[in-house]
């Protein structure tokens, strides 16, 4: 309980990350989804920077900077332009209702917390808590990928999943900078590839609704 200010601030930032993940699940419009994603990236970079300050690990500042530049600026702006070019800034459909999605998300958060607290009894409380929150951010990103039909919001779900991974890595002490940078670049490359794919899907099927792919494979009538 009483770990002082450093724990409280880390708790605040990581907790807000989970909250923004929930915000993203409940957003119905693509633009507000992107704004929420950018906000999550800013929070992530603040959280990582705080870890750097607490752990006296200067290389984490680089991670925070990478998160800020790539995830909070480049990726949202790029997705913004993709949405504009595709002309799909209308309402997105969700596969299941937002109420059920929210309840499932709550269940996932509870699950990840119980699992993480059981698995890591000996670790540093700061790292334990970061791991628990990071796992819930990852699971919420996965939930977003399965609950959305629109390919763009699935991409956002994937990116927010990656946010959770970075949070876990920052809390776990000692992820080398090389890994860090290569992860960041692979995410960026994945972003480009996905962007190209989006346009290809659009050209082929006249939509980015992935149900069209299911129909094409003959899985649904």
């Amino acid at each position, binding site marked *: 309980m009483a770990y002082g200010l450093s724990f409280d601030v880390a708790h*605040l930032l990581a907790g807000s990350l989970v909250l923004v993940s*929930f915000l993203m699940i409940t957003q119905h419009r693509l633009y507000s989804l992107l704004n929420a994603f950018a906000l999550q990236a800013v929070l992530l970079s603040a959280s990582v920077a705080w870890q750097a300050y607490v752990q006296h690990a200067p290389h984490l500042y680089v991670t925070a900077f990478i998160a800020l530049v790539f995830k909070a600026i480049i990726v949202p702006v790029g997705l913004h332009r993709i949405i504009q070019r595709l002309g799909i800034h209308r309402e997105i459909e969700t596969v299941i209702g937002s109420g059920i999605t929210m309840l499932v998300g709550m269940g996932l*958060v509870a699950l990840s*917390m119980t699992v993480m607290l059981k698995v890591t009894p000996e670790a540093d409380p700061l790292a334990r808590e970061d791991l628990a929150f990071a796992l819930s951010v990852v699971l919420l990103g996965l939930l977003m990928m399965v609950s959305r039909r629109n390919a763009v919001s699935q991409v956002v779900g994937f990116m927010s999943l990656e946010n959770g991974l970075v949070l876990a890595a920052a809390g776990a002490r000692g992820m080398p900078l090389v890994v860090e940078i290569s992860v960041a670049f692979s995410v960026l490359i994945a972003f480009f590839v996905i962007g190209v794919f989006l346009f290809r899907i659009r050209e082929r099927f006249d939509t980015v609704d992935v149900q069209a792919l299911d129909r094409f494979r003959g899985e649904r009538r």
Partner: protein
Amino acid sequence: MELISALLVQMMQMLLVLAAAPLLTGFVRKVKARLLRRRGPPIIQPYRDILRLLKKEVVVADNASWIFRVAPYVIFATTWVAAALVPTFATGLLFSWSADLIAIIALLASARFFLALAGMDVGTAFGGIGSSREVMIASLAEPAMLLIVFTMALVARSTQLSVVADLFSTFGVGLRVSLGMALLGLIIVAIAENGRIPVDNPATHLELTMVHEAMVLEYSGRHLAMIELAAAVKLLLYVSLIGCIFLPWTLAGPDSPTAAHLAGFILYLGKLAALGFMLAVFETAIAKMRVFRLPDFVGGALMLGLLGTLLLFVSRSL
């Protein structure tokens, strides 16, 4: 002697909530009118309305049962008692030890139960619609409120409002993201429970949108006066609740001198004015929601409460 003075302070608090409630309603209406560049009715208009209603004769439908006649008094009494339990200008009042926050929620819930019954009693279509909508909103708002209470109880280790307020005023709780979530959730619940604008429009009589007004459509005279006064007291209750939990620094302690009580009293009026002003600005800036979008809005409060409790649970079990 001590008992008598404690009783006096408690009586003062009960009279204060009763006297200040229509004033708050009138103030919010006035600010809303001014923001829309209308002049608006004078601030004391709700008092005049209630007095006029008290003088008028009561018209009761032929097929109304005793529930219809009893309900206004039950609603008013439970709401008033609940409001008397929330610390307004001082903590540790005489009655505050007899009931905690959960009891306050239960009192408000029984008031809502009787209101919904009365709405259905005469058998008009509007009453039925209003009751069903009110219960739909309540079925989400009430668990949300309970979860918010659990969040605060986990931090303060008590559901007594006086204890919570005393603890929060000493900065002894540190930085807690759960409390921020609890505040947001409490604001959403307060808006939903009082039928303010994104949920229900308190000024409308348009059939398709009304919730609270649809239930009380059959009431007249002193019955209507009781219900209107209860609604005003309920708004004051929620505003004082937010003020006492999240702005507890102006509350006078249980055995502080009279001057502290007086200062707490004046600062309480200031708090009411500030929060009422913010409510009016919020209501002016936002549009009414469709009824079927309400579960998303009020469900947000439920989610915030649940998440706040979960996060606290994590930091507690480390």
